[in-house]
């Protein structure tokens, strides 16, 4: 069975400082990994994805994430936070299950606050 752990439920940074949102996963096969962002009262938007290509993945709005198989991590980073980055971020893993179907598992989310 696969699982996702977002290590921080809440992260607060100052505008212009780096952002680090941590995510660890467990999976039996070859997972695909995603980061989604949800702004208040909005839907989920795909930030970036890892699907067995380059381990450093660049996404929208200056975000990037590095897939580290040895550490089973997929942390999300951004060099300089902007006020508009304040939102809920979800780490998501997708992999094959023993049942032969593909399953998507969400982390519990990390709320990012950006202080002026």
């Amino acid at each position, binding site marked *: 069975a696969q699982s996702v752990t977002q290590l921080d439920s809440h992260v607060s940074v100052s505008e212009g400082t780096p952002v680090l949102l941590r995510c660890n996963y467990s999976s039996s096969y070859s997972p695909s990994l995603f980061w989604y962002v949800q702004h208040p009262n909005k*839907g989920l938007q795909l930030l970036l994805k890892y*699907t067995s290509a380059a381990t450093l993945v660049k996404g929208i709005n200056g975000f990037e994430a590095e897939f580290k198989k040895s550490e089973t991590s997929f942390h999300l980073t951004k060099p300089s936070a902007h006020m508009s980055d304040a939102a809920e971020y979800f780490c998501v893993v997708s992999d094959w299950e023993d049942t032969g179907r593909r399953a*998507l598992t*969400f982390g519990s989310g990390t709320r990012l606050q950006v202080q002026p």
Partner: protein
Amino acid sequence: DTAVSQTPKYLVTQMGNDKSIKCEQNLGHDTMYWYKQDSKKFLKIMFSYNNKELIINETVPNRFSPKSPDKAHLNLHINSLELGDSAVYFCASSQIRTTGEDGYTFGSGTRLTVV
């Protein structure tokens, strides 16, 4: 030209009523999903359809019944609504390719409030 659209955006209804949420995607994806997001923001899959065929049916009360008339549509019908059904329901679609996944595209959500 919204990729995944769901209606209505907000739904307030009384306990015991029957309601439907509609979802349509214009991405040509083969697979569609319904997710429920609870008050703590946790997202849990409810159903998944691939080419109109049900492939995932998680432990969901049978008051919830998905209907997929074609691969571009996946509607969710809920009978005898209960207070605990209050949540945000997200529709999504995806396309799984041999090179991996394109990612899941989500609708903007339907906020259901049962009073």
